[in-house]
């Protein structure tokens, strides 16, 4: 579905046709949304803020995965391992070399991108199912590496991380950390939106849509597949580093295959090949456990709770909810929340003459 423009607004240049915010309304909505987000720490309590921070950090990583899966058509089942690699790199860089945390985060992203390129090298020749399985191998190999490399990850005990600071002002509270994450989210999302408007971005999409035709048109398949893997890992690394400095503790077990699947779930639920969809998917995945928890709390003590033993098994219920959400979205809304959002916007734009 194309962007709906007001009647009479004809684009006369290619540049005008590829603007990110095409209408005055969308630009107004952008500033309004930013203003709301900037005020959020003043209004919301710390728990909600930490949820929002999670949406941001996971959203950045999900965006990376979406560039790989949604825009390039390559599948990765090892995204959480790269996310974890970013988290550990940032903590390690800070502790071993005394780099300021704010510098560690982008450097961790670059390190993760390098690792991604190493695993991306076989990916250049693979596609579809074989690639999915190769990335599964990457997941297990990296997980094993995390458990073994004590100098890097702190081993089974995990690793403590410091909060970033600007000068002497430490961003160690949810209220201040939120702004840091927001800044990163904006930078990363604008960068991705711009990437998709360049020759490289269009090449990625061409590789996804028909890789043979793309190759015939002079697009170097191996180069763009590897590049896409590198970009995805870079985003995962940045997201992971932000995640690590927010939690102030990273444990080896966190970055397991279920987490990787959650990332894929975010991309599917948000919408494959949609930049804002990645953020929506991340928000959905963060909200889902909360909803399950709330439902369990509502049922607590009742007959259903006793019969089904919900109380002690809430973590399994969450996992089931993730699995069910993925399947239901695939069957009933394969294009994800992004499409649903477009439909809602279109409905109001045409209201009440939507027929």
């Amino acid at each position, binding site marked *: 579905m194309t962007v709906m423009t007001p009647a009479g607004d004809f684009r006369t240049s290619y540049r005008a046709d590829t603007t990110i915010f095409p209408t005055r309304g969308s630009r107004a909505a952008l500033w309004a949304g930013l203003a709301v987000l900037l005020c959020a720490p003043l209004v919301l309590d710390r728990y909600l803020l930490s949820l929002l921070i999670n949406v941001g950090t996971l959203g950045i990583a999900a965006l990376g995965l979406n560039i790989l899966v949604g825009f390039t058509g390559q599948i990765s089942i090892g995204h959480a391992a790269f996310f974890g690699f970013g988290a550990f790199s940032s903590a390690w860089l800070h502790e071993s070399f005394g780099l300021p945390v704010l510098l560690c985060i982008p450097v961790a992203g670059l390190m993760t991108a390098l690792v991604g390129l190493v695993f991306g090298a076989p990916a250049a020749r693979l596609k579809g199912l074989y690639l*999915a399985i190769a990335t599964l191998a990457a997941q297990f190999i990296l997980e*094993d590496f995390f458990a073994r490399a004590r100098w890097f990850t702190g081993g089974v005990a995990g690793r403590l991380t410091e909060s970033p600071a600007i000068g002497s002002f430490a961003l160690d509270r949810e209220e201040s950390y939120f702004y840091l994450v927001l800044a990163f989210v904006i930078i990363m999302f604008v960068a991705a939106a711009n990437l998709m408007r360049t020759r490289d971005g269009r090449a990625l999409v061409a590789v996804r849509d028909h890789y043979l035709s793309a190759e015939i048109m002079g697009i170097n398949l191996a180069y763009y597949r590897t590049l896409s893997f590198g970009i995805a890992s870079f985003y995962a690394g940045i997201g992971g580093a932000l995640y690590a400095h927010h939690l102030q503790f990273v444990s080896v077990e966190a970055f397991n295959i279920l987490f990787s699947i959650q990332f894929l779930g975010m991309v599917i639920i948000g919408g494959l090949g949609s930049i804002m969809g990645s953020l929506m998917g991340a928000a959905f995945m963060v909200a889902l456990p909360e909803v399950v928890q709330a439902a369990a709390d509502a049922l607590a003590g009742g007959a259903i709770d006793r019969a089904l033993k919900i109380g002690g098994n809430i973590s399994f219920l969450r996992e089931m909810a993730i699995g069910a959400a993925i399947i239901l979205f695939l069957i009933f809304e394969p294009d994800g929340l992004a499409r649903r959002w477009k439909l809602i916007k279109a409905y109001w734009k045409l209201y009440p003459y939507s027929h």
Partner: protein
Amino acid sequence: MDGTLLFQLTLNGLIVGALYGVVAMSFVLIYKASQVVNFAQGEFLLVGAWMCWWFLTEWQLPFVIGFLFTLVFMTLFGIILQVVVLRPLIGEPVISVIMATIGMGIFFQALMKWIFGVFAKPFPPVFTAERVSVLGLEVQTAYLLSLGISVAIMAGFGWFFRYSRHGLAMRATAFDQQVAQSLGISVPRVFAMSWAISAVVSAVAGVTVGMVNGVSSALSFYGIKVFPAVILGGLDSILGAVLGGLIVGVLENLAQYVDSQWLNWGNMYQVAPFYALLLILLIKPYGLFGTRNIERI
């Protein structure tokens, strides 16, 4: 190097590998028939083993009857999954189908944990003798049985695809769906049947492993171990799957031995197959026995 230990390790590897081979075979069956990579194969083992355990302990059924009930249940389970989850996704991109099976995987794994708990539960003893001695080596009876079952299943598959009407229909569908359809083969039925057979065969493997190690969610890891096996063999080769399974079984045992003697990296048993997998994909992207996909525009 100690010769007997090496022999014992290889034998263990072959026995476990035969089970991997069986699971890999049922995985390849689904892939060949319906072009779906089933990431929930391990959960088939899990569900089958738990159902059998449930029939044997809660209902106190004798083993043979409980086992038969399990097989019937798994047949229905496979068909229902195919009809409810995968049929609506026919024609969707690969990633959607893969994600659907992954979603099923985590759903059923969590469901089984919810119903049966996280701790391994032992199977009621089925055999009188725990271990028997073969060529001077102590081997668990259940392992021997599993080897027997594996070989029987493999032979059954061989017969099924070569001579039986349904097996031939399945091969025809795998070869070309449209031609098969025009010859009067019901493709949806073939899909459902392949899922049912795959679920049943996986459940047999699950029950066998459960008898030896007890039933726990660790069983679903077999579904992951299947990937190195099928990549070794090539995604669409049934014989390759069996060979791949055997190789992975032996490889992980030998890797563990090498690791414990010299390297001391730890955990090689789990990870070595994945290193092998990456190496093979680097050299032969279609596996050792898989058909190379020649694409034309």
